[in-house]
């Protein structure tokens, strides 16, 4: 499963309140990252792997948790962003949630990284990825 080691450690920090507000995946802290790399996932990764990663802040009203629509349970987190026509015009292959707008591996915490070949985004369309993460016991 695509949980990163850095997110594993951040979850531990949450329980001891060692985290800072800037590390939380809230409406202003969470960023959707999209890239073109098809490199296999490793839990040591802390960023997407392509050089042209484009990040977006969340759409209004996100994240959602147990809202009955996008998130249908207390353990489901739903994040959504909208990429406009001119943004991220490349092959979409990797998707991640990060608590930073920085694409650098040394900054912020990458929650997960999902690989999926979604094709090339044209400059005539807006694309809207929704990432739902289900936490479990």
């Amino acid at each position: 499963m695509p949980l990163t080691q850095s997110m594993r450690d951040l979850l531990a920090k949450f329980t001891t309140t060692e985290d800072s507000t800037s590390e939380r995946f809230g409406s202003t802290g969470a960023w959707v990252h999209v890239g073109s790399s098809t490199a296999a996932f490793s839990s040591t990764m802390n960023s997407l792997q392509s050089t042209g990663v484009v990040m977006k802040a969340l759409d209004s009203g996100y994240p959602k948790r147990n809202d009955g629509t996008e998130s249908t349970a207390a353990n489901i987190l739903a994040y959504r962003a909208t990429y406009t026509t001119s943004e991220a015009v490349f092959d979409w292959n990797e998707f991640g949630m990060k608590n930073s707008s920085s694409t650098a591996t040394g900054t912020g915490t990458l929650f997960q990284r999902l690989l999926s070949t979604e094709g090339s985004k044209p400059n005539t369309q807006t694309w809207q990825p929704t990432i739902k993460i289900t936490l479990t016991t």
Partner: protein
Amino acid sequence: MSLDALGCIAKVELTLRTYDVLESGDPACPHLHLWTDATETQRCACGRTVVLASERTVIESASE
């Protein structure tokens, strides 16, 4: 017990919706102001209607 069973992410689900931006309204608008009306049609403040072109969901679960 597998390590997956001990993991704290059971599933990651990606839903990608793509929208065609119809060529009407203000051409200078970067479409940063999308909103969804009561009929689930996305619109932009510049007047362009944004039409759902495709929707696809992929799921990566712990058992995979």
